[in-house]
């Protein structure tokens, strides 16, 4: 039998991804894991953009463009974040968020 894929299916997946990301961001202590969580959240939104564009406004391209922008930004952000993490590691010899509190008030 052929299952028709609706908007709702995509949204379920993106929601799951989003909250995986949120959960990961709050619970993990490793900066790299935090970065991965952020990527998950970003990609969940990208999926939403693409899906809404595809199903609700088929003739237009804005949503797709935003997805592409999101991907580009994610790439740049990853590069910067990795650089920061490397520097943090050089300074304190680990990358666990609990112990990196030097900039508190």
């Amino acid at each position, binding site marked *: 039998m052929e299952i028709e894929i609706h908007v709702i299916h995509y949204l379920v997946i993106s929601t799951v991804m989003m909250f995986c990301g*949120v959960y990961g*961001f*709050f619970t993990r202590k490793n900066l790299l894991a*935090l970065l991965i969580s952020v990527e998950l959240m970003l990609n969940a939104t990208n999926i939403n953009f693409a899906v809404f564009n595809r199903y609700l406004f088929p003739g237009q391209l804005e949503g797709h463009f935003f997805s592409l922008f999101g991907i580009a930004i994610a790439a740049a952000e990853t590069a910067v974040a990795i650089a920061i993490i490397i520097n943090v590691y050089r300074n304190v010899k680990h990358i666990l*968020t*609990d112990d*990196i*509190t*030097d*900039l*508190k*008030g």
Partner: protein
Amino acid sequence: MDYTILILALPLLSFLVLALAGMKMPHRVAGAIGTLSLGAVAVLSYLTAFSYFTAERTAEGTYPTLTPWNIDWLPFTQQLHIDMGIMLDPISVMMLIVISTVSLMVHIYSFGYMKGEKGFQRYYAFLSLFTFSMLGLVVATNIFQMYVFWELVGVSSYLLIGFYYTKPEAILASKKAFIVTRFADLGFLIGILIYGYYMQTFTFTPSEEQLMKAGMVLPWALGLMFVGGAGKSAMFPLHIWLPDAMEGPTPVSALIHAATMVVAGVYLVARMFPLFIGFAPSVLHWVAYIGAFTAFYAASVACAQSDIKRVLAFSTISQIGFMMVALGVCTSMNPHEGGLGYMAGMFHLFTHAMFKALLFLGAGCIIHAVHSNEMETMGGLHKYMPITHITFLIACLAIAGIPPFSGFFSKDEILTACFQFSPVIGWVMTIIAGMTAFYMFRLYYCIFWGKENKELHAAHVPHESPLNMTFPLMFLAAVTLIAGFIPFGHFVSANGESYDIHLDIQVAATSIVVALIAIGLATWMYAREKQPVAEMLARRYSGLHRAAYKRFYMDEVWMFVTKRIIFRCISTPLAWFDRHVIDQFMNFMAWCTQAFGVTVQPAQSGRIQTYTMWFLGGIILLTLVLLLF
């Protein structure tokens, strides 16, 4: 008369050059710069005076008031603005001559007197600054410009009194002079503000309309201005700074504290004279009473001082009192009917500047020779210092009022004016004139004759000063000899019209007799080696003598008033209130802020995940709020 701007510009320029580059120059060069610029100023002043007084008179028979230069310096409203400029009228031109002459003589004299002193260049820089400010004061086109330069002379006086800044007495004296005059200037400033507010102008000639409208506040404004003038001119009880100001170098005392700056108060009253006569004659008479009391007080103190510069300082105070009296006894603008005092006061200002500068410079020569101010180190100096002796004698005769020396003529005019006003004040002033003759000849005999301090003079033989110090003495002595014959009333009089000075035989004879008696008394008491009469009097009236020596405890009274009353009863509680109420309230505010800060500080933990938790919570809350409402 465009060149008059140079009269102000040259001393300022010389001050700037000497102040900025003076320390790199040798003494001789620095002194030459100051003296040459002053020489040029003196020449220009004489030129100005010559062309001003030889020019045509106006139809009313007065010399026109010229404003060769004026700029709108600080505009407030259409009518009210502060200008900077040069105004020439008979009294300002007369003052130009006085200031430039005395200042030039002091510049020349200082070459010898200050030779080899540390800070010689600084000294000349300050002299230039002072001359600039004093000239700016007298040519002021408006009362506010006068005030600005008034403060500038105060500053230069402060700097020069404190010239020997390593000496504690000099520092104290300079501070005292500055604070006392500044305190009086507060009155001056308030007077100016009242004047400016009601007259809608700062010039000396308000419009008729404003005068009609607000003439009744003028007595207050003028009275407050006189407070400033009394501070600068050392009127009782604000005179206390002047005797201490003698800590400065002696030529400075001659220039600032005898001839020019201290008469600024007299000049101020003369400047506002038409307004005084027109709207505040009672204030003017108060000026006379204060002047008369000051003259008497200072003359009696001068009789008992032992420091020669202090005697001269009190004599200056007394003579300024004479000038104030002369202005104060005027009742009209007409020199023939009650306006004579104006001319007399200005004339006395002129002659006094010359012979008092001469006395101070002579005292400088004496101090230079014996290295002390005290009379006991002197005596018998006529053998060693003939030029100083003769010139000093001329000045003493002038101040005592013996013809044909200049002081006689001006003092006689003052006494005539006093007798016209009231016989009481006339006789009082005559007696004070006699006291003047007495203490001046006491001073003269104690320095040049009397008891000689032979031990000291044998150890260090006093010598006559070099030519650059004696030349100014001779020059000023010559001026003192001839100044009385200047037809002064022709140039300066209350309403500006030409006035022929004529001696009132009765007044002149009385004053000469009184002066001769006083001189005779001084000769009898002090001229000889042994002075039994003076010692006996000092012993018998030891309380009075001591009180006069201590200046009737005026300094102690002031100390009591300031320290015990003002400091203890007003300042200390105010300081307590400030420290314990106002400051504590501010501290409490700061403490509250800090306590709040400390409470919320842990929220900024540095843990990124805690922050995002709050962030998420906030977003959820906002979403709920937006959804529900």
